[in-house]
């Protein structure tokens, strides 16, 4: 089964990722790979792929894709509203898409990054044994860059056993969906240069809450909060940077280094986020809060073992046949036995031989009503292209946002006249915040 995904709209930053290219860091080549390893693995498991198949990592604003050739797809990670030709598709579930259908990523309800997998995997050339994109190096994935409108991303049924298998409606049971608290507690192992910070500096790092700034991308997450004090400066002889390294430059504010980080660094490193907690951090949005908790190395190894076992459990839960349970309920005052089976997006309830599909309600979509134009992401307004009274047509550029160091144009969905503008260059906006209002023609 071969096919492709044609990008009608590319999304904010959509890159092909597989497990990355470890083994090349001594040449200065970043490891790259998925920011949320957990979401990535679930996406592949849902479509029956090997754990490391190449997927499309979607960031904050997702793409609109036309499917070429029949495909089996799934989305896991951040919770995006999804529809196929206008019909809602539940996340964390495999679904079939027919030739010509259009998959639209809508509002991102929680998290930042989701993984779109296709049975067989994305088919881009191997670069240094990997299909992952290195954005800073401009190689790997789809020509070393994010998806652009007009791109055709091939899907390859490389493994005939996968491609010829009949469709299985795999889904992740809702009890296994990620839950994140605020502030997000992130566990770290101290070092390698924690001794270059004062005791007060270490206490500040472990005892404070830090806000994720807009300077958060695949290379690293800049955090803002109480300054962390060095003993004698922030410069060291450059050494290697492990995943999740928390480096603290001279200004005392921590930066957590992520997948596309440079392989060596010359700033003091106070700690490293443990691998099991990097996925949750990769789903933290600008404006959200994190705090750090130190583990001993033994505790960190135990946490890693639990994380890996959890991944195996999730992969098994996705492929296991759904469990049917019998519940004894009172229905209209009468005691009845009903059979309940979880399905993608809800439950199948069998009452005396009659089946009902009970689906989880989706919250009201952002962007309700054509008149209010809302920001799709947290960000900073870079430019406002219209003034009150201006006539606009569908597709007209209204506002340019800077989100996670990337530019995104918010365009008009309807024809009309600009009634009010609520922002100016420099305005910081939340997801869903009103940017301007259009009176439809």
């Amino acid at each position, binding site marked *: 089964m071969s096919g492709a995904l044609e990008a009608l709209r590319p999304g904010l930053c959509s890159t092909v990722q597989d497990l990355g290219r470890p*083994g090349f*860091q001594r040449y200065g080549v970043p490891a790259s790979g998925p920011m949320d390893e957990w979401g990535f693995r679930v996406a592949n498991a849902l479509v029956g792929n090997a754990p490391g198949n190449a997927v499309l990592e979607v960031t904050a604003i997702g793409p609109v894709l036309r499917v070429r050739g029949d495909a089996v797809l799934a989305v896991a990670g951040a919770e995006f509203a999804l529809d196929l030709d206008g019909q809602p598709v539940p996340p964390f579930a495999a679904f079939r898409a027919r030739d010509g259908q259009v998959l639209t990523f809508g509002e991102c309800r929680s998290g930042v990054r989701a993984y779109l997998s296709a049975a067989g995997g994305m088919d881009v050339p191997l670069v240094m044994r990997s299909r992952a994109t290195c954005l800073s190096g401009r190689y790997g994935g789809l020509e070393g860059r994010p998806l652009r409108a007009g791109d055709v991303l091939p899907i390859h049924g490389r493994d005939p056993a996968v491609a010829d298998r009949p469709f299985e409606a795999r889904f992740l049971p809702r009890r296994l969906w990620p839950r994140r608290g605020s502030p997000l507690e992130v566990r770290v*192992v101290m070092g390698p240069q924690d001794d270059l910070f004062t005791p007060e500096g270490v206490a500040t790092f472990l005892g404070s809450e830090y806000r994720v700034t807009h300077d958060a991308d695949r290379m690293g997450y800049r955090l803002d909060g109480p300054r962390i004090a060095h003993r004698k400066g922030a410069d060291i002889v450059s050494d290697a940077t*492990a995943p999740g390294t928390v480096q603290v430059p001279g200004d005392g504010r921590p930066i957590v280094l992520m997948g596309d980080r440079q392989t*060596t660094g010359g700033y003091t490193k106070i700690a490293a986020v443990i691998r099991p907690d990097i996925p949750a951090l990769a789903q933290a949005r600008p404006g959200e809060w994190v705090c750090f908790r130190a583990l001993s190395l033994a505790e960190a190894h135990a946490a890693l073992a639990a994380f890996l076992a959890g991944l195996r459990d999730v992969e098994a839960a996705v492929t296991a046949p759904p469990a049917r349970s019998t519940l004894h309920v009172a229905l209209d005052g009468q005691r009845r036995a009903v059979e309940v089976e979880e399905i993608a997006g809800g439950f199948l309830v069998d009452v005396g031989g009659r089946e009902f599909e009970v689906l989880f309600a989706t919250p009201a979509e952002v962007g309700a009503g054509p008149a209010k134009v809302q920001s799709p992401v947290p960000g900073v307004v870079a430019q406002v292209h219209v003034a009150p009274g201006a006539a606009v047509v569908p597709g007209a550029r209204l506002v340019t946002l800077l989100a996670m160091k990337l530019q995104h144009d918010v365009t008009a969905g309807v024809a009309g006249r600009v009634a009010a503008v609520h922002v100016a260059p420099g305005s910081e906006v939340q997801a869903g915040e009103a940017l301007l209002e259009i009176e439809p023609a």
Partner: protein
Amino acid sequence: MRFRIAGESGLVVELGAGISVRTNTRVRALGLALEQAGIPGLAEVVPTYRSLAIYYDPMVLDVDELKARVIELTGRLEDIPLPPPRTVELPTVYGGVYGPDLSFVAEHTRLTEAEVIRLHSRPLYHVYALGFTGGFAYLGGLPARLATPRRDSPRLRVPEGSVGIGGQQTGAHPMETPGGWRIIGRTCAPLFDITKEPPTPVEPGDKIRFVPISEAEYLARGGTPGEPF
């Protein structure tokens, strides 16, 4: 020797305090020796100036066992036969449109341009580490005479292959990136090739020499014709 922890899967071995060829050579040797030992659960080693980062799988390799192996190997590094470092020559066209900052460096160091070229191309530079971007070599051995401060603000585009001086360091751009170094020439030797394994002509511990060539020779060897930048 000092061990440091870099996350749950990283062990850093520091073999010295400052920057020296001797320490870096021992770092290289330890990395090669560990790879030769074929230890299950050892994923990757990354040599830098004075330390070796060892990335391992804690589910397979116990960190105390890894430390014990490192201590044992470090004790007999000199006795382990290892491949000698390579010397790689980088044919470089100096000045003109390829080295727009050559005259600045000459003025700053109170040398003639020819003397700058001679001094820059004489040493056998030591490759301490690769980092910053794929294939970028941190070199040691720039004559102190040639030290020149970086530009106040970096150029947005420095062409691939550009050779420059930044403070007390020298090096070459493996790909086009922004950069603040004083660009004195350009090499036609590929410094980073994603189709090759390894993708770089040098690794930490190897040596580099810049060899002055004419523009005609540079172009004949496949160098990209220069344009002002």
